[in-house]
């Protein structure tokens, strides 16, 4: 259906507007507007007598298009019951600054180099910000000795409960299952040499040195790291942190330090739970699959342990906890302005804390081998 029809020649044009001119017909109207030839001059009369339900948007598009066509050489007038808002639109149009569209060239060499430079500077300033954040946490820690009130026991207790106690079931389950899997697959290989009993060594050493603490850290990063970032992030969006600052309170002291401290306490404890469940899982599988009775499992377990095995795993836990809690809270404090930022930074918090945990674990592995721990 045609919504506009151009009639006339030379200096005398008439534009018949008919059919549906509501917003719903916008696409169609837009397409037909393109068919009006350019370079018209003289007078143009728009006849609105057959247009139905004219909408503001389509009429606006028509006005802009006509102006673009004729520039100053076309005198436009309206007849036949034009829409009641036409005058308003004309007024807006005459006041309208012709906003020139920005011209986009491809990226020049200068721009590309500039981008790399900006990125480098950004990384540098971010590194400085991270160090500054760490410094502020340390300052609050130091203050705690002279001012015990800065410890915020109730807040600390809440975070201990949320990051520690509520994580026990999932951490136990996963540690148990993983050690069963390790023991099962190990037994498949070792039984070929008749060395079934070494399954115990495999489970003990892998769980105590690596698996227990690493799995716990990754689970906690997913659970609590994201929660820290999201919680503090929403507080940032609601200007709650600004409100705290305005009341003379330090958000680092109120929000960040309790979380960091709680996680540094909770993660080693969770690791002990994971270790215990892992050893239990290994024992159960040895009993059922390899028919090693429990007393024999325990005595073999004792033999396989060197004095440092347990501690070499556990000592990593507070370091991982510090990484997870700091990344989570730091990313939370970075949230600005929009809901999208909140989602992005929560994701970044989890991904980065898991990455840092694994990186730190690798460094620990090298260190322990070098010092024969």
């Amino acid at each position, binding site marked *: 259906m045609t919504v506009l029809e151009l009639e006339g020649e030379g200096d005398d044009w008439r534009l018949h507007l008919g059919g549906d001119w509501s*917003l719903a017909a*916008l696409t169609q109207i*837009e397409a037909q507007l393109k068919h009006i030839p350019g370079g018209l001059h003289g007078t143009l009369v728009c006849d609105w007598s057959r247009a139905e339900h004219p909408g503001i948007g389509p009429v606006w598009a028509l006005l802009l298009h006509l102006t673009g066509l004729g520039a100053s050489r076309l005198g436009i007038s309206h007849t036949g019951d034009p829409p*009641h808002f036409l005058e*308003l639109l004309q007024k*807006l149009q005459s006041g*309208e600054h012709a906003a020139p569209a920005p011209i986009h060239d491809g990226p020049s060499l200068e721009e590309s180099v500039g981008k790399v430079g900006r990125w480098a500077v950004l990384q540098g300033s971010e590194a400085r910000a991270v160090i500054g954040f760490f410094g502020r946490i340390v300052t609050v820690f130091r203050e705690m000795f002279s001012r015990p009130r800065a410890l915020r026991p109730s807040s600390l207790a809440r975070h201990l409960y949320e990051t520690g106690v509520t994580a026990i079931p999932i951490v136990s389950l996963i540690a148990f299952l993983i050690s069963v899997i390790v023991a099962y697959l190990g037994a498949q290989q070792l039984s070929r040499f008749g060395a079934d009993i070494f399954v115990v060594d495999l489970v003990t050493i892998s769980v105590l040195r690596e698996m227990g603490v690493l799995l716990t850290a990754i689970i906690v990063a997913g659970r609590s790291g994201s929660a820290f970032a999201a919680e503090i992030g929403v507080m940032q969006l609601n200007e709650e942190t600004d409100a705290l600052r305005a009341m003379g309170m330090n958000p680092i002291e109120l929000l960040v330090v309790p979380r960091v401290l709680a996680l540094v306490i909770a993660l080693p404890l969770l690791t002990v739970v994971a270790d215990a469940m892992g050893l239990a899982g290994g024992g159960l599988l040895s009993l059922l699959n390899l028919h090693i009775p429990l007393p024999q499992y325990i005595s073999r377990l004792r033999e396989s342990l060197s004095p440092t095995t347990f501690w070499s795993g556990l000592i990593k836990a507070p370091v991982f906890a510090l990484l997870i809690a700091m990344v989570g809270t730091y990313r939370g404090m970075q949230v*600005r*302005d929009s*809901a999208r930022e909140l989602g992005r930074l929560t994701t970044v918090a989890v991904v980065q804390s898991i990455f840092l945990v694994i990186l730190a674990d690798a460094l620990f592995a090298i260190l322990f081998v070098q010092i024969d721990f």
Partner: protein
Amino acid sequence: MAASIAATAAVPVIRVRGLVSRFGAQVVHNGLDMDVVPNEIFGIVGGSGTGKTVLLRTILGLRSPDAGTVEMYGQDVQRLAAVDRSSLVRSYGVTFQNGALISSLTVAQNIQLPLREYYPASESTLEELADLNLALVGLAHDDGKKFPSQLSGGMVKRAALARALALEPKLLFLDEPTAGLDPISAAAFDELLLYLHSQLRLTVVMITHDLDTLFLTCSRVGVIVDGHMITDTLDGLLQNQTPWIRDYFHGARARAAGGPAAAKDTHG
């Protein structure tokens, strides 16, 4: 005044009958009736906790009434098929108390959001329409490129209005449009509203606490008292002897707003 009396006879755009809203044991609306006629600016006032926003949310279909009916253009809002509902939603515009602009989109993208959803047009046309709506509410082209967090309070209210106008509604709901604005910005908003009301022939339903706004813009006002609505013209309400209404319109703040006395001059 004559216009609003004539309008009262017309078919109501919104008709609420016997509305009951409950939150647990607390009854907010207890058989509330309300009519909004075409082409008027209808103000809703009431003390804190009398359920002004709840009423608005119920009319919009965001909340189901515990009893009673809400009709818009003669259709029961609760009993609409999904298709009719979607076309009904497109026929009105809403601004929320805090603007509720999508924070990850620019102002122009916020305005284009409903247009893009319902009417696939070319980018250049959408750009033009965003500019049009910005111009309608008195914002500049460059304001469209800003994110909501970069706007002042007054600009947020205007941007929200521009988004509400994007689908060319005949009916506009405003929840506290001038709350949090300085008196000059609030007055400018009132003028803008009156201007758009006359130019675009809108019906406006507005929750407001701003007495200046009430006196300047509203043709009729509904006061929620004890779960019921008392609807009258401002002149009528000024004579009303219900305690809350008397306090509201004759309190110190009302006098400071040039309320009763000034209103008698202009409306009487």
